[in-house]
């Protein structure tokens, strides 16, 4: 079992996201530690990209702030390497294919593995193109995470059969961002996955409140929250560590209560 799958063996997983370098890498390092202490089961670290087409306005702005503060892929590797000395929480990189491809697939994945990254999520690398990264990820012991969407339908079977680590279930049509309600039948998406492979499923896109997280966790093995956290970082800037940590604690508790309730 990979480190990523162990994440889900301890009950419902809470997976927060942070854009690296927003507002600066020193703050990102403290946020990751804060999230880990507050009970995050896996932390997604976003490597900012100039043109994040899968993101809504909140994470777009975070990427802009991060790049404006001079954040580079090398700087992020160094930051993660320092954080790894403090915590053994599983970590995933979330970024677009171009920053990985231009860095060099092999140097990127090797270095990511070296600093202690466990998984890689690349939203513009669909099933058809995953050979761009998968062989190198396998060789380096990094799980390349597969995404499924409400439009995936019959594709889910094929994607799930070759999925590694966990399956990232996109809850809704559209880009990332907070939503009032999620209308997709994610339960059905997940049962299609589980019919093919016994692999954990985590739901992301649009989740922000403890109530939503609880509801989603009834159907899934984990819940991913991005924009709601990034919005706090936008609001509090360098003082965001405390509010973000408290938010993660609240969300994790909501999921634990859920587990006990069932």
């Amino acid at each position, binding site marked *: 079992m990979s480190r990523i799958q162990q994440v889900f063996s301890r009950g419902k997983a809470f997976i927060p996201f942070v854009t690296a370098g927003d507002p600066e890498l020193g703050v990102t390092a403290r946020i990751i530690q804060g999230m880990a202490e507050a009970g995050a089961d896996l932390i997604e670290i976003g490597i900012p*990209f*100039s*043109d994040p*087409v*899968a993101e*809504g*306005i909140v994470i*777009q702005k975070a990427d802009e702030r991060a*790049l404006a503060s001079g954040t*580079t*892929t*090398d700087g992020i590797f160094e930051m993660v390497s320092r954080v790894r000395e403090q915590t053994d929480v599983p970590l995933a990189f979330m970024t677009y*294919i*171009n*920053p*990985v*491809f*231009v*860095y060099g697939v092999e140097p990127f994945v090797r270095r990511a593995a070296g600093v202690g990254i466990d998984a890689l999520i690349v*939203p*513009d*690398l*669909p*099933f*058809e*193109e995953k*050979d*761009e990264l998968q062989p190198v990820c396998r060789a380096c012991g990094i799980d390349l995470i597969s*995404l*499924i*969407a*409400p*439009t*995936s*339908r019959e*594709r889910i079977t094929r*994607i799930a059969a070759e999925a590694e680590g966990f399956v990232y279930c*996109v809850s809704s*049509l*559209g*880009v990332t961002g907070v939503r009032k309600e999620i209308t997709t039948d994610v339960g059905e998406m997940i049962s299609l996955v589980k019919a093919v492979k016994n692999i954990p499923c985590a739901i992301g896109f649009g989740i922000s409140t403890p109530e939503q997280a609880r509801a989603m966790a009834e159907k899934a093995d984990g819940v991913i929250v991005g924009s709601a956290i990034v919005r706090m970082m936008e609001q509090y800037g360098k003082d965001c560590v405390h509010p973000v940590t408290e938010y993660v604690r609240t969300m994790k508790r909501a999921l634990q209560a859920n587990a006990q309730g069932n």
Partner: protein
Amino acid sequence: MTKGRFGSYGGQYIPETLMNAVLEVEKAYHTWRADPEFRQELDGLLKNYAGRPSLLYFARKMTADLGGAKIYLKREDLNHTGSHKINNVLGQVLLAKKMGKTRVIAETGAGQHGVATATAAALMGLECEIFMGREDTERQALNVFRMELLGAKVHPVTSGTQTLKDAVNETLREWVSRVEDTYYVLGSVMGPHPFPTIVRDFQKIIGEEIRRQLMEAEGRLPDMIIACVGGGSNAIGAFYDFIPDTQVQLIGCEAAGLGVDTPKNAATIAKGSVGIFHGMKSYFCQDEYGQIAPVYSISAGLDYPGIGPEHAMLADHARVTYIPVTDAQAVEAFEYLSRTEGIIPAIESAHAVAYACTIAPKMPRDRILVINISGRGDKDVAAIARYKGVDLHE
């Protein structure tokens, strides 16, 4: 290697949410392209609505003035809506209609593709929304109003550099949000497979006509064809039929803005490197970490940090030569063609005219050179006046 490749370029690098939509387009295109009724309908529209074939005009004064090769102009500017964009749009919007889509969306730079899409949507009764960088809505205000007249909703895009690249980002985001009833009419030979192939197939009529018309006029093939390149749809349209005829030199003129030695340019082949963006592997202007560069050109239509994947392959194979042309050279050519032949070209097309002005005098008089005038320049008159410091009240 996966589908839709031109050498190692191309591919389908898009979010999972869009994969089924793109596969559906691929399947529908495969079915309809071979359908005689579809072909007949499209040919009818191209002839009776767009005004094809477009003229191949012998530029007598320009030829005499430059004193070298015989110069012919392929007059895509005379098409309905004023550019080559209508060729692709009529094909794709007809396809969207056959697929049962009720709404089309598109990005636009200069506004040519947006106007063409709004036009075809009006004609075929589809809802239409256009995404255009805010900076471009200002440089091309006339085209914004034109699209609105045609019944389209125009969304100014305020993210990033507020130009064509950002318009593509925003159109992709819109498509992810509403994919079931919506068809994305991509405007150039770019994006994920099958778009580079579909757009090329709908544009290759330009080169096919050049061949036929020049055989009638001169009884032989041209020695050189020159076209401007942003994403590269008018260029691939003019070149494609001649790719096997290796004696025909093919020249793509990319936007060098203030110069390739300055950061203010959009010369992708000259200054870019291989990357993966907007659904395709190709050349892009970007930094060492793969962050896409904020490019610049006076021409909103060429102000794009990438180039279609088939061009990337043709550049590697040296079948097409790509030449950077600056703003200053393009503006000079814009004025030159207007004065010399009474034809005001789009500032995009003026990049091709500029190179022709340099190369034609060096060619013997028995050589034949064709310039693809991809669009007309009415839309650029105000911007050129501004460039020249003329205070114009429209």
